[in-house]
């Protein structure tokens, strides 16, 4: 339930707001719904990652030219061991790391802050 709420409300907010809007959304929803900081972190991180990777996959699949490939090459320069990793894997890993950290800490802080004021 919490997962779905973050996914849906966070998705709508992200579509119109700045990229980090998912953080306050996850924070508020976890304040309200999550039981433990751990649950807040995990559910929120999972929802944020699903949202980002899901939307990114959609954009990449419907694009004429894969910007994922181009941006991956920008970071690897087309040489070295990083360039051997599939480009989409590299870019989606970075996205997952960012989404996990932002979403996770946001959800966790929702629960922790609720406990402070309780």
């Amino acid at each position, binding site marked *: 339930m919490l997962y779905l709420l973050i996914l849906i409300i966070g998705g709508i907010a992200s579509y119109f707001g700045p990229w980090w809007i998912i953080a306050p959304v996850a924070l508020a929803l976890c304040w309200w719904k999550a039981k433990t900081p751990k649950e807040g972190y995990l559910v929120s991180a999972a929802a944020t990652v699903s949202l980002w990777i899901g939307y990114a996959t959609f954009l990449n699949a419907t*694009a004429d*030219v894969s*910007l994922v490939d181009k941006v991956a090459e*920008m970071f690897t320069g087309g040489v070295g061991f990083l360039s051997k990793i599939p480009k989409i894997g590299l870019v989606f890993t970075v996205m997952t790391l*960012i989404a996990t950290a932002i979403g996770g*800490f*946001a959800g966790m802080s929702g629960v922790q*802050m609720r406990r*402070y004021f309780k």
Partner: protein
Amino acid sequence: MRFIKHFWSYLVMVGLIYLLHNPIGMLPPLGRLFSPFEGFLQNSTNKSTLLDQNLDLEGVKEEVKVIYDVNQVPHIFANNEDDLYFAQGYVMAKDRIWQMEFYTMVAAGRLTEIVGERALEYDRYNRRLGMARAAAKIAENLKSDPISSKILDAYTNGVNSYIAQIDYKNLPVEYKILGYKPTAWSPYKTILMLMNMRNTLNGGSDDFRMSNVVDEYGLDTVKDLFPNYPAEESPIIPVGTPWNFKPLPVTTPSKVMAGKNDDKVIVKIPSPAPEIGSNNWAVGGAKSATGLPILSNDPHLGLTLPSIWYQMQLSCPTVNVYGVALPGCPGIVIGYNKDIAWGVTNVGSDVMDFYKIRFNNPEKTHYMYNNKWTPTTKYTEEFRLKSGKIVKDTLIYTHHGPVVYNESKESNFNKNAPAGHAMRWIALETSGSDLMIFYYLNRAKNYDDYRKALTFYTAPAQNFIFASNQNDIAITPNGKLPLKWKEQGKFILDGSMPEHDWQGWIPAEQNPTVKNPPRGFVSSANQFSADPTYPYYLGWKFAAPNRAVRINERLTAMKNANADSLRSILNDNYNVAARRILPTLLPILETSKDASIAPAREIMKKWDLMNNPDAVGATIYERWVKELENWIWEDEFPSKQFMLHPTEDRTFEMIKKQSTAKWFDNKNTKDKVETINDIVLGSFKATLDSLTLHNGPLTPETWAWAKVKNTSISHLGKIPGFARSGIMNGGGRGIVNATTESTGPSWRMVIELDKDWPRGYGLYPGGQSGNVGSKYYDNMVDKWAAGKLDTLVFMKNKDEKSAKLTRTMTIKPKK
């Protein structure tokens, strides 16, 4: 304590968002960039981004229709000129705003603001050249020029109208990566963009390198090795064309250069770039199948993505023109209309001179001029780094121009009176309006209109080629050309002598020109504008004659020409230089018993002198001729000591006619005197060794010319992954198909004039869109590499129907 326990994760989150929202050093703002909701993925495109569109914009007076064709070329139909240039600015910005702004940051020396400290030296150099200050002055002057200011203002409003409605999601991806935003456009920025072209095409000088040669070997050697006209040449104005004017007198002073220097003068001014040239030609009706002229032009520039050119059609009741425009500039620069076609190549005359300046004190407050201490002008330049740090630099101006970056010791005259070198440069000339030549050419109907248009142009001087459907063809090396005594500015001049100032200008009507010459065609390839009978001195060194010789040979032989025959010259890979020198070099190779060079030698003997993509002979020749040149000259004229090597023309003459010249000896080998055979064989072997080292043993695949040359089109901001490399094509330096490793034909155009409606063909190595996420970013590259041309869609009016028209953007005035 309890606070920390409950708030640490919140603080971590806020900290992370902050860090990921902003660029850190070289790292882009990662969170923002990778978020699929705002970041680079929002720059993805597909069919849905290319639909009809209706816009209500403040600033247009009446409805404007922008019809896009299959190549995403906009065809703009407006009801008045203001709306036309407004729409031009708007659509150009929509496709190319990042590129437009980037050029202005380069010319203004402000790259540090977007890429940080690593651009500081480059910025410092560009500021010392003084381009921004000159651009500001020109922009100010143009305010009082009614037509220039009208089109500049309309264009500016159009660009700004686009910038105003752009949100972060739609920002070009380069802005997202570098973490900044576009700022308002202005006429000043347009002039800055033109400054870039002036710098690219005229911003080089060998004065220092020549002065160093004189100091080392004396004037007699210079006269012998650095003559003022090559042994082989095919000048732009055909030999024998009469000069129907009385030239202005020019006096040569008794002292023709600054005094000898204690040390080699080392100033980091680049040599004029030989690859940055161009071809253009036009055949008259007598040589064409239709009986009317055909014109062709291919400007050779550094190859970049986004491309330096943007194709478009501009149409309103007073003009209907098709061609390519420069991103950031109103009007069409190279193109055609119903009646005429025109094109440009660089003249390359000597328009950047250096003056040795004697200052009276270390603060450089005064300098010696005409036996008087004359005050300098000082400007403080501020460089804002990306980090916010400010770096300052002081720029000193004399009446000649700015004192450029000078690495030599400050004690060239004596300890207390430092020396410097001031630069007189055509690019800093603030009179005239270069935009006006294009304004008038866009509207020209005949030869007289062409001649009138030419008078408005300042720099960089171009060979303006012309053809009309009244069966006229013409070419004019045109621009402001300084009036100089012979060899003025071949060496560093004396900044204290008024006689060393530029003497004035060659009167515009006395610039070399020819109309309908008996040979039936006109052409240029950056070679000498005219033979030595032309009464004025334009410079001692122009591009090597190879391309010109080949073009003129082919055009002389051509009959019943059509667009395709001209296209075949654009793709001509014949190596004229190899034809000239190999008959002398190959017999020397035969004298060697060394079996290791035999396979390569056999290839050279069988080579058909074509720099075709699969030619191994071309690979060996191109690398060898460079090596050979170094083996001959580098010992006596070391590049590290800022000495110039003699030209290829002079080198070839020496190889062919002076085989015992002392210059063949390598003076670095103490106990041996090398002969021409030692040098030719040694350099050949060294070439093969180097090719083997870099490409592996000789096979037809690994040593194929296209493979070794590896033509690449880099991204303008050098972002890896946004470039194209490994383009398989032939050509090369000095070849008509002038595609080198990183430079080449940046636009190819062939126009068949017609009484009714002209037929245009063309393309450039890039695409209309500046968005790397669009398939129109580089869609013309493969066709370009294959030497093909697109049929251009030049519409008669906005109601014309064509299967090649795909969508319409309708702009209406905002109510």
